[in-house]
């Protein structure tokens, strides 16, 4: 079988409210905490949707648009940087599984 990239995998996900240009973020990340006080940067590894990335100078960046609502970052971050909520069904992002 062909090896899939994470982008290809996320391309199969059915995201909600895609037509809305400005969806309301359901996760807020204080990346100052990630960049200044976190020694493990766990979210950049454990997130299965690559919402947390490290740039070339080792700084953490976050985007919520690809989030598949798994909740992993809420546990992995033990520094209090992640404020996690469920997306709003009307104006938030989030997923609708075809199979689940």
């Amino acid at each position, binding site marked *: 079988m062909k090896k899939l990239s994470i982008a290809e995998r996320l391309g199969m996900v059915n995201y909600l409210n895609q037509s809305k240009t400005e969806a309301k973020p359901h996760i807020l990340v204080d990346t100052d905490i990630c960049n200044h006080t976190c020694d493990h940067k*766990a979210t950049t590894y*454990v997130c299965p949707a690559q919402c947390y990335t490290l740039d070339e100078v080792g700084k953490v960046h976050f985007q919520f648009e690809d989030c598949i609502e*798994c909740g*992993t970052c809420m546990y992995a971050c033990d520094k209090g940087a992640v404020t996690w909520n*469920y997306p709003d*069904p009307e104006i938030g992002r989030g997923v609708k599984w*075809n*199979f*689940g």
Partner: protein
Amino acid sequence: MEDKFDCIVIGGGIAGLSAAMTLARNDMKFLLIERGEFSGAKNVSGGVLWGEGLSKLVPNYWEDEDAGFERFINHRRLTFMDGDSSFSIDFKSESFNEKPYKGVIVLRAKFDNWLAEKVQEAIDQSKYSEESFLAPNILVEEVLMKDGKAVGIRAGEEEFFADSIILAEGVNNLLTRQVGLQDSYVPADYLAVGVKEIIKYEQSVLEDRFQLNGLSGMSNEFIGTATMGVEGGGFLYTNRDSISFGLVLGMISLRDAKLTPYDVLNHFKEHPVIQDILRGGEVVEYSAHAVSTGEMKVMPKEVFTDGLLVAGEAANLLMNSGKAIQGMDYAMHSGVLAAETIIEAKDKGDFSKTTLKVYRDKLENSFILKDMKNFQDAVHFLHSPQMFETVPSLVCDFGKQFFSIKNEPTPKTREMLTKSIKKHSSYWELIKLGIKGAKSL
């Protein structure tokens, strides 16, 4: 407040729907709120619904032309893997074809949706056919408390009131935290992340490859190099015309290995043995979810308070004991027990925790907490590095010796075993492991 409900159920997954079914059949007036567009739209599981609980909730469900399940299990396989080999324990039995089935494979977007239809039918036949509701696409943001008692919920600007609340919101239990039953921060130590692909095949290819007959199905779990040294394991379940294939990985272990779940998944899929299993399939969905492991330390401090009960994964009721990953059956049964407790509370006219604590006793006396308590050692054993590193390597090494015929004088099996053990462990380590394993299972 005349139009308040007997109960508001938050979450339309298996726990919530099982509670709702029980409430409807007992002529209770309730509201079930689901944040997904339909029941199942937000849910991910491996997944096998083990046991016969479904046949009690929906009698003769297998007669339903399009019952929500994919296949029943009559074939189970546990596979140990090293870098180039696999060694499986394989069990198939015609006796598992008997109804009620002992386990059915499900895809949640379909199964939960089907179960919700069944609940709606029960509502239609109940005394409150016009006053009980399944309400999807609504996010509950707050449980309303008054004098320490749960009295209702808020969703956006709307408030709804009830004598009781059942929280069945799943593992990411924000409301359970909000009412103070769970810590506001739950550490990753006892949680895992599951990643999964739905891989589609022509049905005849699937049936031939996995020796399926009619609606029979197979479950296969994998331990060893599947996970690149990360604590956890792989799974494969046959659906009607696809497989559910993926990994469950310990969050801390993944973090410490600096690996992503999708890279480990790619590694797993590249294993030569796995390649032969998967060949020709097409991935049609990628999904992931946080999941409990069965470690009881992670559970909420309590599963009840005044006017409120917690059911299913919201109470971290899930266990991987090595025999099976049980979670959906726990969700179903705890949902039923929660609803029964609410029905009894209504008869008594008392929804305080003095009455609702009966729910705790019901859980303690059921297979759910009995098994979780009895098999805590198995949960720990399964998460020990020996189990996902030493044992699979040793087993495969032995397999390579035992199954190769070299036209040379053949050593006795015991010598082969000794060689494998010395290579990957020691007799002493293995005896310790054996005792631990024998005790825990």
